[in-house]
């Protein structure tokens, strides 16, 4: 029977500010426990929060990047609950009036199975709001006790909430990846998932086509795309089985266990707390002037969506290529430098090399594009030689390898030094072909008898004789001419 999957994501992106959202303490990761917790973070009696404008600036940048409404007036509210790593007994967040309302993100969902095509998907955002992170409870190393580290307490977060727009784990992962790329692109979050700078909760439910929304379960704290895929796939499978076995889904919060690949309920709806939200009287409403928004807009980089459209328009790239190249600002920047040096007409060739050989080698070496041993101008130099037929694509791989190993300052040097220049002199090639024909009478005979395969063998022999330096197209043409003649 048919099932529809409905997924909404809530993402906590840690904002890249120097200090915390309501105190002057540093947000740097990895310090000894509690050394980055000041009086405000410790919630000493009498201390008060003061909003960090840099965190607001991040929220504005995000709002502009997803084409959302930046609220001219939003309100910080207290979310009240007791937990040892929540020093005040409440979290300062935003509730009724968030700083960012609406917005959307368009992404490309990769093909899941062979034969499928990648497709575009627009995910609508409900809101994004500013809030502070809690500290950490450390249960290991304390023998029956719990250690509290408040370094993270008060770290600024932007919680980004989507509509239940996604219909598969693949879509959810594609959204999360696009969001991850975007927050890094606009410089508001470092995206470090291991350190918890970017973490997602997935609300998952299933229903029959056309039926009202099913009861959802929320998978908490997904901190890798792989786990997200696994967790959602498992959860969907589990929910369908439950319903098909006649059991109703209970609203619950669940955790994904990567060791077993399963989700398990953490608390049910009955345990749901009443957070008693109310406006924080210690903070004035957050007012954002249109001037501040305009100023921020002027400082925004070209967004990946805009750049993608431009790549398609100006360089004639496919949607897939344009999306891949705009996955990060660094990759896009590298590609554009490459095109600038190699010429616009060679854009597709540049794209192929950046997404193909370069990406593969970087991935293998676990390097970012910024640390690439082959610079964009070196790659462009090589692409230009492919384009002007100085070298073939096949030979280019050797040139690239040499550039990667720093065997020469640029492609031209390497081509000269290694004698890789393509043979384009018709006379020379004809001479070679004559030699090949003389040496392979059997193949010639077969070809003339109608065996096309024999032709390929002759081309291969000719190429081999030139150590691959002959222009394959030219070889083809001349060979046909000779055989015909």
């Amino acid at each position, binding site marked *: 029977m048919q099932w529809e999957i409905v997924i909404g994501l809530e993402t906590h992106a840690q904002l890249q500010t120097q200090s915390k959202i309501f105190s002057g303490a540093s947000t740097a990761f990895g310090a000894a426990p509690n050394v980055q917790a000041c*009086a405000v973070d*410790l*919630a*000493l*009696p*009498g*201390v*008060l*929060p*003061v*909003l960090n404008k840099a965190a607001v600036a991040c929220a504005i940048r995000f709002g502009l990047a997803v084409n959302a409404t930046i609220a001219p007036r939003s309100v910080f509210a*207290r979310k*009240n609950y*007791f937990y*040892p790593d929540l*020093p*005040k*007994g*409440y979290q300062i967040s935003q509730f009724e009036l968030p700083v960012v309302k609406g917005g959307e993100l368009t992404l490309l969902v990769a093909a899941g199975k062979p034969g499928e095509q990648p497709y575009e998907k627009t995910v609508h955002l409900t809101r994004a709001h500013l809030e502070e992170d809690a500290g950490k409870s450390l249960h290991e190393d304390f023998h029956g006790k719990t250690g*509290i580290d408040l370094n993270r307490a008060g770290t600024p977060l932007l919680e980004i909430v989507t509509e239940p727009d996604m219909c598969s784990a693949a879509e959810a992962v594609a959204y999360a990846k696009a969001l991850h790329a975007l927050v890094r692109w606009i410089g508001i979050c470092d995206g470090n998932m291991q350190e918890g700078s970017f973490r997602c909760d997935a609300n998952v439910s299933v229903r029959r086509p056309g039926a009202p929304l099913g009861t959802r379960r929320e998978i908490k704290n997904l901190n890798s795309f792989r786990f997200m895929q696994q967790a959602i796939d498992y959860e969907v499978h589990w929910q369908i089985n439950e319903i098909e076995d006649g059991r109703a889904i209970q609203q619950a919060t669940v955790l994904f266990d990567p060791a077993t690949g399963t989700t398990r309920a953490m608390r049910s709806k009955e345990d749901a707390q*009443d957070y*008693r*939200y*109310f406006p924080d*009287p*210690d*903070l*004035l409403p957050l007012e954002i002037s249109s001037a501040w928004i305009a100023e921020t807009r002027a400082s925004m980089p070209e967004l990946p969506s805009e750049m993608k459209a431009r790549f398609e328009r100006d360089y004639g790239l496919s949607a897939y290529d344009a999306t891949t190249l705009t996955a990060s600002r660094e990759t896009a920047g590298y590609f554009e430098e490459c095109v600038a040096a190699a010429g616009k007409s060679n854009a597709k060739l540049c794209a192929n090399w950046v997404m193909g050989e370069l990406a593969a080698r970087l991935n293998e070496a676990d390097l970012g594009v910024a640390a690439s041993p082959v610079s964009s101008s070196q790659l462009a130099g090589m692409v230009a030689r492919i384009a002007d037929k100085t070298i073939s694509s096949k030979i280019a791989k050797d040139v690239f390898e040499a550039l990667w190993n720093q065997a020469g300052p640029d492609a031209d040097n390497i081509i000269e030094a290694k004698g890789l220049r393509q043979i384009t002199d018709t006379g020379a090639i004809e001479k070679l072909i004559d030699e090949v024909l003389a040496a392979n009478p059997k193949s010639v005979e077969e070809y003339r008898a109608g065996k096309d395969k024999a032709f390929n063998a002759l081309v291969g022999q000719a190429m081999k004789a030139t150590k691959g330096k002959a222009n394959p197209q030219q070889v083809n043409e001349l060979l046909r001419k000779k055989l015909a003649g």
Partner: protein
Amino acid sequence: MTSAYVESSLTALADALAAKAISSVELTKLFLDRIERLNPVLNAFITLDRDRTLSMALAADARRAAGENGPLLGIPLAHKDIYCTQGWLTTCGSKILSNFVSPYDAHVVEQLKQAGMVTLGKCNMDEFAMGSSNESSYYGPVKNPWDIRRIPGGSSGGSAAAVAARLAPVATGTDTGGSIRQPAAMCGLTGIKPTYGVVSRYGMIAFASSLDQGGPMAKSAQDCALLLNAMAGFDGRDSTSLDRQAEDYTRDLAQPLAGLRIGLPREFFAAGMSDDVRAAIDAALAEYRRLGATLVDISLPNSGLAVPAYYVIAPAEASSNLSRFDGVRYGYRAPDYLDLADMYCKTRSQGFGAEVKRRILIGTYVLSHGYYDAYYLQAQKVRRLIADDFREVFKQCDVIAGPTAPNVAFELGAKSEDPVQMYLSDIYTIPASLAGLPCMSLPCGFGAGNMPVGLQLIGNYFDEARMLRTAHGYQQVTDWHLHMPEGL
């Protein structure tokens, strides 16, 4: 024999110190000796630290010797125990902070230290400033120096008793719904709650954040103005602190009162005010008329809703503000518990007193899902109506006058079993608190049991100087503020 200095005004003390007629150490010792003798009876102080106090006095004398000469340099004062004071026990009148030594100074404390004032000690108060009689303190009730069988008012009852008994020349207080004005009235003092946002709340332990405001408690309006000069000022650590130019609150004191329009809210003079209070208030108003002021009949139609609205808003904020006292990081923690929930439960059950628990419960209730709109939001709307009432009447008058409290100080225990009766002690002080307006109480006579009666003045926003001048003009022609309890 009582030295004349314990009765002196701040200006007289400043003059004596400047003339080197007395040193800060000598002056401080006079008060410390008096505290030593009288505090066991009055219980006005929770914490005293003679050595620490004298070292501050010594430092003040050194600053003077080095050429400094500020108006408050070397003058001792007492702090309400709601202000965090570095190195001092800071309890807020609660068991839950019975072991809390503050690692930092409140903004107010910092400012007064900078001015060279000497901390005599930390004054008793209602637990977390919740009370009107000082009976909710974990450290025992404060006695009214005018009659030790009676309450001194609250919550700044220790500060009021200390100044009234001349254990300190001035003291700091805080006012959420009347906690400076009502004890000032009960103890025959002058006390002012400035416009919300004038005095930084940084380091002032929060009761109800949208209402709390620090202010001075003193013998006269002039002393209040001098102390307020040092307490007020913008502080970037408090987001509700107002970034305004510093002002001298003494600047208008000498201005005559002729032509001043004093509004008398009908609702404050209706049934509820006792006859002795009414007589003293009426006499004070007659005095104002003699001084050339005009009395204007005004109405604050929504003031009757103030007490109920206040008892939704203040407990709501308090229930959240007091969540940090959880036994995890500092303060009292129950000695035995089974698990985390049990630790929270026992720590807070044992650490908080009955009145604080009552308000946490009320506050938790009114913020709960399904009740928020009916209580909290509704109360906020009422709050706006009350503020609008004031905005209207300030078109007709310059300052508002009325009683501070409906009765003189009652006897200890008289209302402690009936919280609603207790809450009604603040019926006249709460409206101005909800509106965030500056307001004060000054002594205007004696009522039943020869206990002091307080006249309340309410000014328009940032109009402290005019309000203080209204009080000062009266104190120039009357001597109620100079009376001192006998037999101490």
